């Protein structure tokens, strides 16, 4: 095979095609860039942030509620985005808050994906009573607003990052289960699976090597959207006081803490974390939107 042939094959490789199709939209590229920046900032927060906002030793309550640009009482630190009531540097708190958002969003989505996908695959491939039972549970789950499920679970468990992840997984796994099942059902009837069965391949091998790859594209779209949904839900729950502890405020809790100061014009405590949250969700939605167009040929723009 000549180099040119190889290049041609590469060019036609699905991944290649997807990347090219994705790059079609400048808006989607901008979203991706923004997302990369946000994730990088979240990962690098301990090195970027002027202060560790979760270390009570580093906070000084005498610096509480300072407007953006103020200098700390000991003259060592400039609070670019102001401070909250506890004397926490808002910029640092937002960077650390993004970290929580990203961790919660990704962890919850991956776990929910794992649980939902596994159940969905089994149900879709084997069908039968398990399928019927699972779909009943999925129906119940989807009939119930995710925010209510999560609220009740958090009221049960108490606060904490692990607990909020569990609550999010519990309220989102059903989406994956249903998506996977419907794709798996369609694929399971196709000729190549029939052929694989006739060849005597093990069920595990068929499911994971042949069925799963075909389920992935739609699942990726769902997952991309659900990361955004998970982050928004975590923020909402924290805002309602059901999410994370006060000493480790996530973006939602930072916004909630600023609520009472809004009326007296101390806008910065709520405004900046909200903007950070908005940008994160926007970047995720832009990416997810384009992914859907790219990975789902039926909906692709003509």
């Amino acid at each position, binding site marked *: 095979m000549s180099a040119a042939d190889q290049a041609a094959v590469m060019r036609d490789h699905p991944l290649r095609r997807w990347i090219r199709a994705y790059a079609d939209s400048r808006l989607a590229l901008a979203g991706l860039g923004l997302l990369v920046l946000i994730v990088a900032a979240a990962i690098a927060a301990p090195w970027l942030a002027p202060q560790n906002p979760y270390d009570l030793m580093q906070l000084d309550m005498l610096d509480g509620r300072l407007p953006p640009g103020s200098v700390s009482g000991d003259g060592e630190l400039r609070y670019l985005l102001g401070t909250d009531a506890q004397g926490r540097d808002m910029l640092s708190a937002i960077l650390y808050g993004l970290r929580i958002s990203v961790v919660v969003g990704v962890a919850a989505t991956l776990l929910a994906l794992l649980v939902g996908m596994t159940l969905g695959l089994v149900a879709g491939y084997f069908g039968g009573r398990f399928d019927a039972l699972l779909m009943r549970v999925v129906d119940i789950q989807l009939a*119930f607003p995710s925010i209510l499920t999560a609220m009740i679970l958090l009221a049960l468990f108490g606060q904490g990052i692990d607990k909020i992840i569990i609550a999010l997984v519990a309220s989102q796994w059903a989406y994956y289960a249903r998506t996977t099942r419907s794709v798996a059902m369609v694929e399971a009837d196709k000729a190549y699976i029939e052929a694989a069965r006739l060849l005597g391949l093990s069920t595990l091998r068929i499911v994971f090597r042949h069925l799963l790859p075909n389920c992935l594209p739609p699942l990726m779209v769902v997952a991309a959207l659900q990361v955004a949904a998970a982050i928004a839900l975590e923020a909402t729950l924290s805002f309602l006081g059901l999410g994370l502890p006060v000493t480790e405020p996530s973006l939602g809790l930072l916004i909630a803490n600023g609520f009472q100061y809004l009326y007296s014009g101390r806008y910065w405590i709520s405004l900046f974390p909200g903007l950070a949250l908005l940008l994160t969700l926007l970047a995720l939605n832009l990416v997810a939107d384009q992914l859907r167009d790219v990975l789902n040929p039926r909906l692709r723009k003509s």
Partner: protein
Amino acid sequence: MPFFILRRCLQAVNVLVVMSLLVFAGVYAIGSPLDLLVDPQATTEDLARAAAALGLDQPVWVQYGRFLSRALGGDLGDSFIHGSPAIGLILARLPATLELAVVAMLIAVGLGVPLGLWAGLHPDTVGGRTIMAGSIVGFSLPTFWVGLMLIMVFSVQLGWLPAGGRGPTTELFGLPLSVLSVEGWRHLILPATNLALFKLALIIRLTRSGTREALQQDYVRFARAKGLSTGRVVGVHVLKNILIPVVTVVGMEFGSLVAFSVVTESIFAWPGMGKLLLDSITQLDRPVVLAYLLLIVLLYIVINLVVDLVYALLDPRVGRGGSGR
């Protein structure tokens, strides 16, 4: 058709029983409401008396059994805090929440359908792109934060609108409503807008893709080629094509609007049942939490049923034997 309805009702009962069991076990595990209710000076004897009065001295399955048998008679128990039937408390707050949700839905549909249509008909214009970009931003806006920003801008900075509360209501057929007075609207408009934003974005997108799909259908192309006016094409063929998804969304999302009004109500101090739910959770008022959740599930089921029926009316091809979703 009757069989279809019957089967759905049986399913509904199943779901309700399972739901009640889960929620009962869940809310039971949170903790005892006694510590919050009983007088600080209370002795062990007082505590035992109060526990017996509320039925809390029984094992959980006995409590659930009692609850279930009474629930069959329509009695979902008395609120620990208020001492009156939980369902009554919720129903008293229902009009406020429904009014908020209905107005929000009307805003979402009233703005979303025309905007989505326009974006679908003119996809490559600046306007069309702006609408679509706007809808993505709308998807990404955290509802609760937008609520705060609305208050900051319109109440604190500009001072145009009240920051919260429901304001005066006017009775209509025994229902207290805000939409009948100017003052009521002044209180309603911010929370309703806040609640509507997310659904607005959703409806814009749905309408747009429905429109685009319709425009590519052969019969629409044919109608256009035949020289039918754009107005008529849109009015007859396109609208018909997008009606089903929009009806579905309005139906399906109405339940989630009601659920998400928890957030909006707590920001704008709207005296609806979402606020009641939050308060009841923090006060461990178990019967109210339980009744609220069951009511929401019921609402969902009813809405689903109605949506399916409307579906069947709009499009005879939709199978009546299928799961219908």
